[in-house]
């Protein structure tokens, strides 16, 4: 479980790491929109080059990015199966017995696969280069304009940062409980169905108990230190946009326009 890399922060020193989280979030949104525009081979080639360049600029190894894509492989296989059954247009590629597989089915799957891969690469660029705390600061700031229409920007940001903070803790806790129950003879790999259910139960119940306990302790600790959601709060860390941040946002906007042009004009 320690090998779970999707969304992990990697403390390298690169230009992308130094950029303002708000700029990075906005740029990511723009690039995500570009990925969803059906721009054909040329569009995706351009996007692919730009995104891989960004990954390299952030000093992330392609191996790391590949690792964070692994959980998606299962989903892609699943998609391929569904597409093979559902899509019945295009040329017949080959037949298995009496079952015909069409070219569009394969084409669609590849299309989705490419989109997914690009999306994961872009989001990894954000999460691997931005500390979770900075990320939530950025989200809070970006949501501020929506406060007037009743969006609880600060509360959302606080919830996200608490959730992020507790992911590693919960993973650690799970490992601990698994070990404790293993020494009481629980075998998560083998055994009959009834034993397996029992094994999972012996893991989930203590995990829930401790998660609720932690939540309560945290809430009390926050209240004891005078935390009230609605209050005006000052911040130790002030975000400031630099030239590089404007450049990043401009570049991603240009990219979006470029993709639009490729898709709708050419």
């Amino acid at each position, binding site marked *: 479980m*320690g*090998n779970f890399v999707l969304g992990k922060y990697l403390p390298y020193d690169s230009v992308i790491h130094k950029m303002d989280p708000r700029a990075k979030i906005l740029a990511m949104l723009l690039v995500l929109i570009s990925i969803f525009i059906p721009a054909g081979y040329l569009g995706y080639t351009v996007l692919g080059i730009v995104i891989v360049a960004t990954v390299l600029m952030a000093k992330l190894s392609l191996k790391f990015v590949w690792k964070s894509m692994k959980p998606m492989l299962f989903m892609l296989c699943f998609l391929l199966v569904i597409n093979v059954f559902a899509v019945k247009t295009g040329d017949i590629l080959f037949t298995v017995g009496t079952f015909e597989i069409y070219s569009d089915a394969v084409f669609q799957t590849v299309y989705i696969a490419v989109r997914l891969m690009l999306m994961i690469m872009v989001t990894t660029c954000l999460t691997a280069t931005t500390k979770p705390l900075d990320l939530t600061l950025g989200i809070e700031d970006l949501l501020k304009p929506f406060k007037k229409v009743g969006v609880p920007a600060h509360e959302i940001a606080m919830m996200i940062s608490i959730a992020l903070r507790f992911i590693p803790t919960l993973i650690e*806790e799970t490992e*601990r*409980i698994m*070990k*404790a*129950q*293993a*020494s*009481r*003879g*629980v*075998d998560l790999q083998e055994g009959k169905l009834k034993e397996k259910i029992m094994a999972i*139960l*012996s893991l989930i*119940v*203590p995990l829930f*108990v*401790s998660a609720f306990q932690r939540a309560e302790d945290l809430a009390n600790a926050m209240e004891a230190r005078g935390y009230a959601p609605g209050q005006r709060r000052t911040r130790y860390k002030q975000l400031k946009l630099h030239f590089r941040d404007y450049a990043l946002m401009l570049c991603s906007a240009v990219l979006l326009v470029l993709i639009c042009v490729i898709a709708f004009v050419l």
Partner: protein
Amino acid sequence: MSIEFNKVSYIYSEKTPFEFAALHEVDLKLSEKKMTAIIGATGSGKSTLVQHLNALLLPSGGKLKVLDFEIVAKQKATNLKALRSHVGLVFQFPEYQLFEETIMKDLCFGPKNFGVSEEEAQLKAKKALKLVGLDDSYLEKSPLDLSGGQKRRVAIAGILAMDPDVLVLDEPTAGLDPQGAVQMMSLFRELNQKHGKTVLVVTHDMEHVLNYCDEVVVMKKGEVYSHTSVKEFFQDTTYLDELHILPPAVVRVRQMLNARGFHVPADCFDIKTLCAHIAKEVKHHG
């Protein structure tokens, strides 16, 4: 039948950027039917060491013999379940492992996993609960409704119900009140002396080491720094200073008295003999 570490190494998250070597070629032979304390600063590898004893962690290098079981690094270990039924491991803050609706069911969970029949498991559960000082009225209660100290006892009883030959405890008294801690340590000593169990305790409390244990293993930076009998260990106080260990009160008093001109022998480890020595010397001078 013994416990032997032979150049055992353990590396966490091997071959990743987060790689961390917790044990370096540990050689250690633990005596059977003794009560051994394992001490050392945090991060010295105590918990990693004890988790090898019932194969929760498998060595990255070297080999290890526990009772009749042999575990060699990079070889597929078999029969782990059988090993775990002989070695009971109580984790730090074990109360987290409670999960059943009633204490009875929770206590039966371990034995039943190891293939003991329902009736026998219940018998063992009752016996274990009595050992930790709780009466039968608790059997039908939910383990989640108990106080912290009681939960700890029930969790330890859950391991005792498995009736292991080797009992390993990782800081069993952390967070208990002093009285509860003394009761727990006496229980482990009793299990060791009356029931002939090999007991290993990871602890930070030197009083417990002095009063209840036979041998001490000192861990330092993932290596076994020393392995001596308790009496030998507390005789040489300069050695304790070197390790930044604050000796137990009796030893400290002896040390201070000797620094001010008394001649209390180094093998005096309890208050009664200490007092007798002081009285003798005072009379002698008086």
